[in-house]
């Protein structure tokens, strides 16, 4: 936990480009603004997955690099969007884009940033036990060493957020 009596000085928001990540962002902005916490948003380019597809020969090297650039651009776009919606509420959000194994990079950022809380969107639908081993939200939940808040209920949150 970061220094001081305030329990939520630093909040990390994990986004992946999904709609539920937007809901999580709205909730994170609302909480951070209320508690006057620092808020940092993180997106991770899933390099691990790209490497796996290269290994099984689905991708050729050039194509893998092309997709990596695409995913990086996607990530920047998502992060900029979070900055923009926070700005509309008069709140500043820091952003960070990492590359690698998603849950490991998020965990590393949790440690390095020293956050008091990680916020992420509703977990992806896990259709099977097999699937759960690959669902990044689940893996993050298991890996990080800090409290994690999973944000559900998009309609309710959007309504509250718009009233802010």
């Amino acid at each position, binding site marked *: 936990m970061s220094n001081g009596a305030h329990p939520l000085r630093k909040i990390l928001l994990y986004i992946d*480009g999904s709609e539920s990540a937007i809901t999580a962002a709205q909730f994170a902005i609302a909480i951070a603004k209320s508690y006057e916490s620092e808020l940092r948003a993180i997106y991770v380019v899933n390099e691990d997955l790209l490497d796996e597809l290269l290994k099984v020969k689905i991708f050729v090297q050039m194509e893998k690099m092309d997709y990596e650039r695409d995913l990086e651009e996607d990530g920047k776009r998502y992060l900029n969007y979070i900055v923009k919606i926070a700005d509309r509420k008069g709140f500043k959000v820091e952003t960070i884009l990492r590359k690698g194994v998603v849950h490991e990079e998020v965990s590393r950022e949790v440690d390095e940033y020293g956050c008091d809380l990680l916020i992420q969107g509703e977990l992806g639908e896990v259709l099977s*036990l097999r699937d759960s081993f*690959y669902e990044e939200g689940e893996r993050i939940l298991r890996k990080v060493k800090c409290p994690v808040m999973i944000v559900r209920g998009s309609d309710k949150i959007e309504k509250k957020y718009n009233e802010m």
Partner: protein
Amino acid sequence: MKFTEHIDPGNIKLGLEGQRKDEVIEELVELLVESCNVSDADTILDAVLSREREGSTGLEKGVAIPHAKSDAVNKLCIAIGISKDGVDFEALDGKSSHLFFLMIAPTNESGPHVQAIAKIVKMIKIDRFRSKLLKANQPQEVIDAIESAEIGEI
């Protein structure tokens, strides 16, 4: 990402007629014209053939996953084809390919495309899954098999 949300019976052809790689790809692209609101089938065909020239997407165990990005689609589009006789797709193991998953993604969003490819790669490793697809008599049986694989029943 749920794979079955991107397919319907109109995207599936059980008896592919093509005997060559380019013919099969053309048949699969044709499936997308109506079902996926494709604006320019020739552009997609060129993109897929161009990608194949970089290296075949024919994998082992009779499966091929031709794919490309194109502005001619505005969402991830998937077509599935099955060839009973098999086609020389220049596969890694040198054997004929029977199961084809064509995936076309819009150029401005690669995330779902990468996830869909990764998901099908996982499914095709399951022997019973491939076997179910090869035995399918109706497109719906293909969808059912994919759904079963997604929920871990296969």
